């Protein structure tokens, strides 16, 4: 039997705003399958986003949904999780939203290791505003504000998350659609701050400027440049040159923030 996505969607809020060929819908379907596998209760699950194309995702899902301001999803979500730790809190958004204007909130959510999952759809561009370069646009690439080629180096979101203290970091792609839900399931089950970066595509504002002839070509690129982390273990440095690793990249156990705050509450009771 075909998977029933409809029971998690708000049908009267569709069609979505995403362009034909955009990978965000693939990620949304992966998230829905993950939620189904995890059995998360709708009334007890908040889905929080910032601003941008990817951040429109919560509006389509039938949960407690919060579309915040640009870059602020992690900070709003931290308030929800602290006030009601029993709620499941999932953040979604794009690369510009999460790592530029929201970079500070992102790294501090990682540092606190607060039990939430952040799905970052990295399409290497600010799509909604028409294709300006983001902190994740490759050096040399064309954007509407890098007509002569991007002079900026790009963030590696996974490394950034690991360096900042996230305790579960994974990477998938919109091409590897069946892997997305598995990564999200593992991320949500992990106790702590988990980051799932999904390499995505924006044919409208990135592909056209960077000589991709079709969406298929963009999707094929996601397949060609990535290597599963398990396979990479058997590859030479030369073979791994220019490749991006996918799968669960990092996982460790470390005290979780709301659990630590529960201890603060206990200790305060003994204070005069």
């Amino acid at each position, binding site marked *: 039997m075909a998977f029933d996505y409809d029971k998690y969607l708000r049908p009267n809020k569709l069609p979505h705003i995403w362009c034909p060929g955009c990978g965000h819908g693939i990620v949304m379907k992966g998230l829905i399958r993950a939620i189904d596998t995890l059995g998360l209760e709708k*009334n007890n699950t908040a889905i*929080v986003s910032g601003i941008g194309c990817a951040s429109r995702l919560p509006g389509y899902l039938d949960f*407690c949904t*919060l579309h915040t*301001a640009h870059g602020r999803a992690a*900070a*709003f979500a931290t308030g*929800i999780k602290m006030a009601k730790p029993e709620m499941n809190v999932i953040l979604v958004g794009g690369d510009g939203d999460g790592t530029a204007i929201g970079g500070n909130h992102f790294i501090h959510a990682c540092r606190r290791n607060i039990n939430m999952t952040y799905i970052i759809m990295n399409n290497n561009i600010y799509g909604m505003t028409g294709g300006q370069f983001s902190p994740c646009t490759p050096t040399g690439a064309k954007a509407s504000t890098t007509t002569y080629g991007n002079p900026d180096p790009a963030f590696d979101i996974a490394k950034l998350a690991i360096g900042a203290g996230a305790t579960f970091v994974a990477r998938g792609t919109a091409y590897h659609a069946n892997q997305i839900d598995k990564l999200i399931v593992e991320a949500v089950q992990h106790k702590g701050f988990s980051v799932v970066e999904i390499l995505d595509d924006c044919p409208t504002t990135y592909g056209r400027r960077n000589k991709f002839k079709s969406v298929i070509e963009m999707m094929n690129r996601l397949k060609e440049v990535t290597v599963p982390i398990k396979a990479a273990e058997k590859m030479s440095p030369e073979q791994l040159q220019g490749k991006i690793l996918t799968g669960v990249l990092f996982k460790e156990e470390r005290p979780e923030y709301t659990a630590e705050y529960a201890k603060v*509450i206990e200790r305060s009771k003994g204070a005069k």
Partner: protein
Amino acid sequence: MAKKVAFMQGNEAAAQGALYAGCTFFGGYPITPSTEVAEVMSIELPKINGKFIQMEDEIGAMASIIGASLTGAKVLTSTSGPGLSLKQELIGYACIAETPCVIINVMRGGPSTGMPTGPSQSDVMCAKWGTHGDHAAICLVPASVQELFEETVRAFNLAEKYRMPVMIMPDEIIAHMRERIVFPEPGELEVINRTAPSVPPEQYKPYDTKFGDVPPLAAFGSGYRFHVTGLNKAEDGFPTTKAALVQAEEERQVRKVDANIDDIVTFEEYMLADAEVVIVAFGSTSRSARFAVNEARKAGIKAGMFRIKTFWPFPDKQIKALAGKVKAFITPEMNLGMCTGEVKRCAEGKVPVVGIFRVDGEPINPGQILDKIKEVK
């Protein structure tokens, strides 16, 4: 039983007022001269199973309290000038998403870093015009430690009643001075909680005007699923660009304060019955003004004071009425004429409005005001 009395600092009293009002969540960022509010909340909140979080920046602090408020908590943050500038982005979010929250802004010199340890009253315009777009504003300006406690309780009541951010703006003198405070007994001051929905979840709309200009707000995690956005929204909470809906929604958000001004605006009339020269003052400046009025009376001058307790909405009606009766207004303030401009607007050219302005980090002393009274009488 005798009431509990203490010798307490203003910022500490504000924190105690928040706890009295039922605040269970504080998100903050350290900044002089408001930090004591955060310090007290960090100590007291966990004792009552509340939550304190020190966020990574001022914007994050504002975001955290809005998120927590959406779970049903009564929420507070505290800041000062530069922090208020940063918070403006999400104060606007709380306005459009109609999320109750309270912001204590202790006024220090500005703009920018200004004079962090000096008093000022130069943020009052920022309370109304700081965030972009049309929106309602409520801003309270207490003048004593006791009043800072009581006005903090009232700020929570107004935030919950009108579903919006409410600001309390003590100047640095009020926030840092220590004086006697008599704590009200539980139940002595009114405590208002937001209206919960009366309809079942499937019929709930977070901005349902069927219930008036302030629709009930459900809590995340309480069985009600709904959408919250910073975009202009329809009654169901989802974004809309339909002209008629946006116009109606914007007008309603401003109207919920404009139509309830008499419920919100508070003030004190001191020796106004026969007053010919009226000082319009607020915050610590009103304490100097009271002294000056007393001295002027001793000298046979008919002086009085209209003390603003609620700066926004501004007491237009009361100032306009006085303008028809008195000979002159004197407006001492620790800025370069913010309140003066409002009083002039209300005076409509009927009487002179004479300002006394200080922005040097020093309070306006009674002598300065008395001299001006003698000058204009």
